[in-house]
């Protein structure tokens, strides 16, 4: 059983944090999990594989787990294939997810609280309709995907060493991972869990292709390669679903961690001591820190891909030069040596440095030609289910790992509601919502694509809003088949 705690949109003034009456707990939310086949022979406690926060008293853990189990079992009676996904209570929302047969993950998220004053006394009011089911159930699914990326399936852990190993792996992974979840800022983008692609002209793209192919040839143990620029994907040799979660890891965890030293000006990447005057900006984001130190460790994170199929275990080598990052994935049975790392550095470093500046130059030229330098007049989110392409002019990067919406949370919630409506039907739809204070929210679904637009114009009517959105589609999406 995995359990985690999360606190969304704390409106009670932030810092204080505690749930009324539970001041001792800094993190007021929980995760619950079931592993039903263990029920008969072992006690409920045995079924808990992971519970966060761990300080919760044993009986309460058991009680909470029991409740979840009961709800899932109960709802299964009505819908054997689709048991309950979430439970709404006054204080919490609970989300259930069965990623592998008989393994359940549960996440409890507390409803936001408003502090009101009645007769001079503070009164807390739970906002029961604020949280969006789809957002947090997506977050829960991503928790699993991320765990699986670095640890393989639960079942594999059980096969490797039984419950003990699984528990260890869960503890090790989630202990750190849960701290990185920024549940307050989760929104529609978490539902999509999309990939932002770097816009690029054909010729530069082909050059990158050529580079990747040549690198895979020279470093022949490389099985897959992914190429990113400016934290946006350009090429993935991995399958889409694996890339989706790897992309999330890279952009929300690995890259931000390495951003700060770069910004601080430390870790000056030019290494003039390279033999053969191959000056370049390449460096490892995973693996060895100093190639000149013979004792340096060449340990790379292991990742698991194609778990439904070939179940491959790989070393993840992330190498970066300026804004261009390459992920080389090599079979886990071949441990990368220092010699290999040096070879990689000497081959990839100089070429990637040149390529990175080529991309930068070409990108600026293209931007000038298309006139895209102007600030986008529209606030929109675009997502294509087919290639997971995602684009948002609503979100801004506030800290390296969190991107925040630049619009009012109420508008974000409307977007989420429209998205829920879309997911209920297969057909193309269009929804236009008049929101508060001159805001209009438009949602369009065409085939596998979704577009959400937020407009803020005084005294406009439905027809004018429709015209505006048409204009947006004509300028931003004229190269795709998007029904108007």
């Amino acid at each position, binding site marked *: 059983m995995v359990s985690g705690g999360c606190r969304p949109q704390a409106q009670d003034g932030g810092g204080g944090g505690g749930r009324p009456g539970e001041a001792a707990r800094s993190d007021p939310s929980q995760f619950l999990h079931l592993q039903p086949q263990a029920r008969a022979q072992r006690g409920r406690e045995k079924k808990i594989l992971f519970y966060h926060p761990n300080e919760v008293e044993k009986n309460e853990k058991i009680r909470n787990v029991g409740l979840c189990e009961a709800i899932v079992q109960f709802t299964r009676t009505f819908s054997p294939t689709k048991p309950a996904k979430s439970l709404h209570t006054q204080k919490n929302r609970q989300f259930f997810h069965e990623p592998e047969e008989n393994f359940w993950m549960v996440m409890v998220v507390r409803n936001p609280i408003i502090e009101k004053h009645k007769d001079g006394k503070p009164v807390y009011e739970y906002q029961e309709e604020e949280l969006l089911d789809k957002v947090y159930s997506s977050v829960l699914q991503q928790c699993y995907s991320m765990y699986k990326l670095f640890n393989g399936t639960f079942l594999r852990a059980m096969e490797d060493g039984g419950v003990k190993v699984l528990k260890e792996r869960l503890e090790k992974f989630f202990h750190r991972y849960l701290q990185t979840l920024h549940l307050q800022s989760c929104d529609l983008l978490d539902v999509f869990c999309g990939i932002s*692609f770097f816009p*690029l002209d*054909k*010729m530069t*793209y*082909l*050059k990158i*292709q*050529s580079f990747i*192919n*040549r690198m*895979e*040839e020279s470093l022949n143990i490389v099985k897959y390669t992914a190429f990113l620029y400016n934290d946006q994907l350009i*090429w*993935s*040799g991995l*399958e*889409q679903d694996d890339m989706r979660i790897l992309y999330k890891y890279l952009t929300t965890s690995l890259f931000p961690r390495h951003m700060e030293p770069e910004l601080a000006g430390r870790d000056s990447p030019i290494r003039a001591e390279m033999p053969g005057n191959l000056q370049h900006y390449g460096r490892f984001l995973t693996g060895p820190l100093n190639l000149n130190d013979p004792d340096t460790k060449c340990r790379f994170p292991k990742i698991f891909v194609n778990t439904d199929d070939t179940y491959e275990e790989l070393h993840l080598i992330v190498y970066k030069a300026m804004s261009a990052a390459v992920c080389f994935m090599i079979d886990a049975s071949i441990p990368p040596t220092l010699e290999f790392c040096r070879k990689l550095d000497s081959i990839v470093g100089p070429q990637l440095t040149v390529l990175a500046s080529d991309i930068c130059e070409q990108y600026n030229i293209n931007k000038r030609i298309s006139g895209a330098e102007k600030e986008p007049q529209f606030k929109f989110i675009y997502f*294509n289910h*087919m*290639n997971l*392409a995602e684009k948002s002019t609503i979100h801004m990067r506030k800290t390296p790992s969190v991107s925040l919406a630049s619009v009012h949370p109420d508008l974000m919630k409307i977007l989420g509601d429209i998205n829920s409506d879309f997911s209920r039907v297969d057909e*193309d739809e269009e929804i236009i919502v008049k929101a508060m204070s001159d805001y209009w929210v438009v949602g369009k679904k065409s*085939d*596998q*694509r979704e577009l959400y637009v937020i407009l803020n114009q005084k005294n406009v009517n439905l027809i004018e809003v429709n015209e505006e959105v048409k204009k947006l589609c004509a300028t931003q999406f004229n*190269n*795709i*088949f998007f*029904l*108007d």
Partner: protein
Amino acid sequence: MAAAAGRQPPGPAEGEAPAAGREAGAGGEEGEGRAKGGVEAGGCYLALCARPVHFEKANPVNCVFFDEANKQVFAVRSGGATGVVVKGLEDRNPISFRMEDKGEVKCIKFSLGNKILAVQRTLKSVDFLNFIPDSPQLEYTQECKVLPEKRTLKLLKNQSINVNWYMYCPESSVILLSTTVLGNVLQPFYFKSGTMSKLSKFEIELPAAPKSSKLSLSERDIAMATIYGQLYVLYLRHHSRTSNSTGAEVVLYHLPREGSCKKTHILKLNRTGKFALNVVDNLVVVHHQDTETSVIFDIKLKGEFDGSTTIHQFVLPPRSIQPYQIPVAGPPSVTSQAPVPCKLYSSSWIVFQPDIIISASEGYLWSLQVKLEPVVNLLVDKGKLMDFLLQRKECKMVILSVCSQMLSEPERGSLSVIATVFDKLNNEYKKYLEAEQSYTMVVETGLSRSNPLLKRPVRTQAVIDQSDMYTHVLSVFTEKKEAPHKFTIAVLMEYIRSLNQFQIAVQHYLYELVIKTLVQHNLFYMLHQFLQYHVLSDSKPLACLLLSLESIYPPAHQLSLDMLKRLSTANDEIVEVLLSKHQVLAALRFIRGIGGHDSISARKFLDAAKQAEDEMLFYTIFRFFEQRNQRLRGNPSFTPGEHCEEHVTFFKQVFGEQALMKPTTF
């Protein structure tokens, strides 16, 4: 009319191969029995032509002459009294005739077109004989321009120069005169349509300061040849003991029509001894008699540039000319005899420009040929190999086989080598396309009349286009499936990258090859990404191919529709695709969006709506067309021409007669 014959004092007449012929170094005094020093058997890249001209070998009664202009061999028996036989490489029918023996013939040749025969018997005069049909064959003697109808010659121009020796190059109509005491100042003249123009003279740098004032530049060490369309004077500079050069070298002087002659290239021979020069297929061939090998130089290949001249090393290791078997003549009954191997690099060989080798003692005239297949294995550097091959006349099939070879085991090339080769091919391909394009533009704009020099660009064998690559290399390579698919795809993408780099529009069959390969290996996500970045350019055939993939890869549907949309000429196709998926409303909205809804067939949409088995959809579509009818004709009902009776009946059945739209009257 070529009137140069006999104008200048003839060269020193030599007994067996006189006058017009000169040996460029391969002197006859060396013995024939020299061992072949270190000649490897394989890889002979030079060969004598298979069908040589055979003539009666030189002997005391039979004199043999060669005319460089017409490339004809003259066998003159007993001063012509017992017969003259003229044979050329091209013309297979020998000309034979008799003429009066008026003394020893020093030189004999035909005018262009074999119309007039010129015979030199004395130092100062030339005899002429008309070979024009129906014209009396009487000899006449004169010294200048020939007027056959008057049987006289005319003086063109008179130049007074002290001349040591002369050399005439028929290809370029340039005559070179050796002047000054040392003989190293050369004065060229250029003949064109009966006029003679003096070009600026130039000096050949002699290897060392001559000790005495005697003739130091021999005509044996000078040759003239056209290389890559430019006339060069080739000077064989022998190794001098005083200078510390490592061996002899050939110095090339570029002789332009206008401007001065400049020393441009030095070909390093790295050896000493007796040499002879040929120029074949724009390559300078240097034969070395001592080692019985030859080397070749290509002045277009990269050399060491010292600011004014480029120094070249030989392209390939020295090799002997391919062994040659002399066919045994005689009746068929005796031909079972083994053919006799021909003595190569014999001292009786005489070499003429550009590519002629004559064996006077055996009675053969060959043209020298360069064989490209052996070169493939001798030049390891594929980039250099391509540079070399692309300049050769008969290069196409060899280049294509090199491409095939580098894609398959055991000699599979690395991707960067493959990329280099593709780039070199496409560079040549692009040059041709550009020339062709600017030619077409000039012709279309009607500017061609004002520019009579404009010629349609010639497509040489070095132009290897996409269809060549597809047919001979890429489709074969992908079908063999020997290589790992990663490599196959990398090669295809590399070729596409190279084409793009040279801004050559990629043909859709190459994209189809990529798609086919990706699909075969279930690499749909890769395909998706290529399409996403428009690496596989939009076209209707490609969109249709994608549509056909929908059943195995559903996103292909979206990709295909996007492509059709971008083409903007495929609106009908979009409607068909949507209708086939029963997305009738979407189809209608699309056609309305582009303003084509007034001309579409109502029946087609109603058919699709009915097949969708969605009554509300049918109602909506039906109503739309009723409204259209109302708008266009003032009446909502369908005309018989629209063939919608069946749908009207169905509509009434389902929704009742009263649901039909009432005509509105104004």
